[in-house]
């Protein structure tokens, strides 16, 4: 496959377009890598340390200065601060309130409440709140803003 790299001026302009006859494992891997899903980070549970793949994370929450990572399998804690994970994970991981980062790929649907807050139902049926102030950023990340 031919690869073209074009230099752009800002991070906002960065994008990758892949033209392929079919989506092979290699292409899926490349997409994951580009989107940051293949990144891993250290978490711990019951005194044991694991490397968690970003693609398994549903959301990350900060409570009393501790950071908790939620996956389908359970909850882990990590030494990373919320703002560090926001930078590290990037892509479809975004701040949805002051104390939470959500993985947009794990959201089944969203529904606005009359108060303006947005309830996001995740693939594990948990509901997390997206503050109205972050709605614009959600749309931007999804390419509809």
């Amino acid at each position, binding site marked *: 496959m031919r690869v073209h790299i074009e230099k752009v001026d800002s991070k906002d302009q960065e994008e990758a377009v892949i033209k392929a006859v079919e989506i092979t494992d290699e292409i899926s891997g490349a997409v994951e890598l580009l989107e940051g899903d293949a990144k891993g980070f250290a978490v711990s549970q019951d005194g044991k340390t694991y490397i968690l793949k970003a693609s398994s994370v549903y959301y990350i929450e900060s409570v009393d200065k501790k950071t908790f990572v939620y996956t389908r399998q359970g909850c882990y804690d990590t030494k990373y601060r919320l703002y560090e994970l926001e930078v590290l994970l990037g892509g*479809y991981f975004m701040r949805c309130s002051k104390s939470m980062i959500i993985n947009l*790929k794990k959201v089944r649907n969203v529904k606005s409440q*009359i*108060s*303006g807050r947005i309830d996001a139902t995740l*693939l594990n049926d948990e509901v997390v709140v997206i503050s109205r102030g972050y709605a614009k950023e959600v*749309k931007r990340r999804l390419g509809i803003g």
Partner: protein
Amino acid sequence: MNKLKLWFTQTMMISFAILTGIIIEGLVYSIFGRDDLASFSLSWLQLLSIVLTGALCSVPTVLFLTDTDIPRKKYIVRIAFHCLGLYLIVSLFGWIFRWFTNLGGFIMVTVIFFLVYVFVWTVSIWLYKRDDKKINMALDDIRDEE
């Protein structure tokens, strides 16, 4: 957004909305020949009353509508209090600054107030639903399969 910033932006928005309403009213009167457009003017007292009304009308918003983490029923009760608070402020300022001088004028202000209030909520809910639809469609394209 902190409460002071919200109060300030609400004050600006409401003042601008009232001013726009007055200008539209002036235009309508001039179109139907009841008033001469060239003679349309606003005194400093009227402008002051507009800004004061805007500033005071922002207080119920900051008091009742900033906490979004409450159940739907409670929020609807708060909207009712918000509406009532705004109506009392508009009625009081309308009486003090002579926006109406008789019962007919008061009824007109009341009707316009409730029409605007319902219109603002209807548009807000419509915009929320439109956003939801757009976001859900975009989520369909990126969602992980599990």
